[in-house]
């Protein structure tokens, strides 16, 4: 059985300055209770790897508003002006990455691959400072793998040993991030007895999940 924690106790596992992969797409499929507790904790100086920062004060936007993020690797911050302000003010060091490259970089980190070779961004400012590799006369951007200290992910169903299943467009980055972090903390809508999620429905095998968040009291 996996250790199960209240959000505020899970947050105690996370030190200032940690790197965090956070699941979700505009807050859909983000671990909201965990993010609430993290934003309230006063911890800071996080590196956040996520698709976006949602909207001001919502989901990852709570961490932004709390001033807890000093570095951000994301594909889109357009719907959160607070992130853009933080970037322009030099308070948040933002690296913008094409979304398909971002998810592959995370996957490469979790899958033990040395990098991602993609045409996306080739010849644009998104590839500045990145190496290009010539393969049989074709140019490819070489993007580096991403790993993190923690993955904070959200699932639809978990079982006691941490198997996870996701729902609809709340899936997004969650199963990929679960593979790429040293410690995986999963918040789930339901927590079920072992055996209730059929083997073919499990998207994240429990063996890579370290902690579950308890249901709300």
């Amino acid at each position, binding site marked *: 059985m996996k250790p199960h924690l209240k959000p505020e106790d899970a947050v105690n596992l996370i030190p200032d300055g940690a790197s965090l992969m956070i699941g979700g*797409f*505009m*807050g*859909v*499929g983000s671990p909201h209770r965990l993010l609430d507790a993290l934003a309230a904790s006063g911890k800071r100086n996080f590196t956040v790897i996520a*698709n*976006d920062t*949602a*909207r001001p004060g919502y989901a990852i936007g709570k961490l932004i508003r709390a001033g807890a993020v000093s570095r951000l690797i*994301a*594909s*889109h*911050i*357009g*719907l959160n002006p607070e992130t*853009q302000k933080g*970037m*322009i003010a030099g308070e948040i060091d933002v690296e*913008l990455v*094409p*979304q*398909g*490259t971002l*998810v*592959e970089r995370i*996957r490469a980190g979790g899958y033990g691959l040395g990098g991602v070779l*993609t*045409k*996306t*961004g*080739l*010849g*644009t*400012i*998104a590839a500045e400072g990145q190496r290009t590799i010539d393969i049989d006369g074709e140019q490819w951007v070489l993007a580096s793998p991403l790993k993190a200290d923690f993955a904070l992910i959200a699932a*639809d169903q978990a079982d006691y040993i941490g198997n996870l299943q*996701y*729902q*609809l*467009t*709340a*899936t*997004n*980055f*969650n*199963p*990929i991030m679960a593979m790429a972090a040293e410690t995986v903390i999963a918040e789930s809508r339901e927590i079920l007895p072992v055996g209730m999620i059929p083997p073919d429905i499990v*998207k994240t095998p429990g063996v890579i999940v370290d902690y579950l968040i308890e249901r709300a009291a």
Partner: protein
Amino acid sequence: MKPEEIIQRRVALELKPNTLVNLGIGLPTGVARYIDPAAGILFESENGIVGLAAKPPEGMDDPELTDAGGNTVSAIPGAATIDSAVSFGLIRGGHLEATVLGALQVDEEGMLANWVVPGKMVPGMGGAMDLVTGARRVIVAMNHTAKGAPKIVPKCTLPLTSIRRVSLIVTDMAVIEPTDAGLVLRERAPGVTLEQIVAATTAKLVVEGEVPEMKLGVGGA
């Protein structure tokens, strides 16, 4: 007919039956209104769904079923939901027939700039770079000018989205196809003259003989 409806109806005619299509948030989303539902065109959204459909009935929306803008959507019977890696596998791997998206600028080489205005608007590229690099066809759907300023220019001054040439530009004034020979003016919008188009375009346009009037999709929301 509103300018955006002209664009949407014209783009609708470009989409092939039984293919996978990504419609950008905003004006492109409305293209779906003018598609024959029997054509079997599947819409996908980069946050992970194949078989996206229009906004659900009031009170029936599900917060875990959204488009790439985070807006709740519905889905067709037979929809599939996928993670972000598979989603971009479809986009980057050549499985997406067409992407329809807006532009800040398009230039004489057919290059597109649509994601950043340095120092002013830095939203991030989201999925746009993958879409423009990976889709089999890239269809730009936009107003011909922005506040009177031409958007089809000799050379993009804004950062490019991809170094891959777009397939077609559909505006409220014209249909333009970037080719090796330059931007070929294919069609005029109803009631728009060649002179008006040229006046609203700083890029050089190639005009070959008569330029016919646009056909427009007949479906309706």
